[in-house]
């Protein structure tokens, strides 16, 4: 809950690590911090890849019938089998990155730096770090390790708790 100074808090559990799903946690956390909230992000499972020093975010249209890219004045989806063809996912990733650049959408490295700069607290889930054999050396500086109890403590003190 709001602390003694009246500052509110938000926490987000970040479970996804693809280029598209990287946006909601970083957009919401930087914006909430700009609006004066204390923000904590808890990265677990595939969300951990958003903390890697070498960000290499990709996306896939596989199993995502709602992913329709603007094309020739319309919108085009991609049948699942297309994703099996080498280079198609890489192509979709580049296409998305170009589209974002053209529309003035921030890049994930930029949003991540802004989040760190605005003192968004970032916790990497210890259990999934061990599971996927990552160490703190693989991750950007300024993050901490923690487990479920660490997150729950944060959640009990936050007005807003999201799962992405």
């Amino acid at each position: 809950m709001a602390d003694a100074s009246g500052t509110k808090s938000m926490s987000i559990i970040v479970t996804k690590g693809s280029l598209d799903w990287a946006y909601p946690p970083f957009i919401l956390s930087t914006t909430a911090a700009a609006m004066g909230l204390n923000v904590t992000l808890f990265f677990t499972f595939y969300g951990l890849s958003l903390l890697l020093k070498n960000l290499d975010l990709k996306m896939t249209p596989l199993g995502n019938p709602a992913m329709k890219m603007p094309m020739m004045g319309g919108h085009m989806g991609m049948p699942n089998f297309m994703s099996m063809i080498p280079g198609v996912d890489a192509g979709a990733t580049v296409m998305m990155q170009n589209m974002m650049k053209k529309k003035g959408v921030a890049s994930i490295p930029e949003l991540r730096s802004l989040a760190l700069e605005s003192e968004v607290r970032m916790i990497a889930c210890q259990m999934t770090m061990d599971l996927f054999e990552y160490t703190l050396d693989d991750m950007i500086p300024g993050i901490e390790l923690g487990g479920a109890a660490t997150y729950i403590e944060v959640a009990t003190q936050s007005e807003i708790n999201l799962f992405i």
Partner: protein
Amino acid sequence: MADQTLDAKGLNCPLPILKAKKALMALPPGGTLEVLATDPGAVKDFAAFSRTTGHELIEQTTEGNVFRFVLRRKA
């Protein structure tokens, strides 16, 4: 005339808000910041930003496709 102008034209959500907040905090309390943006979402967002933070939105105008906001840093 605002003390400082931030050109956020061509930037999309949430960059106009993030850059405005940064610029606002570089001003002394009571200082004013003019923000120029082309993101239509900025109209609702700056109003919400102002209500939540207490940095007052003292002006909001539209000229063609450019939205102009003037914020006053909370005292």
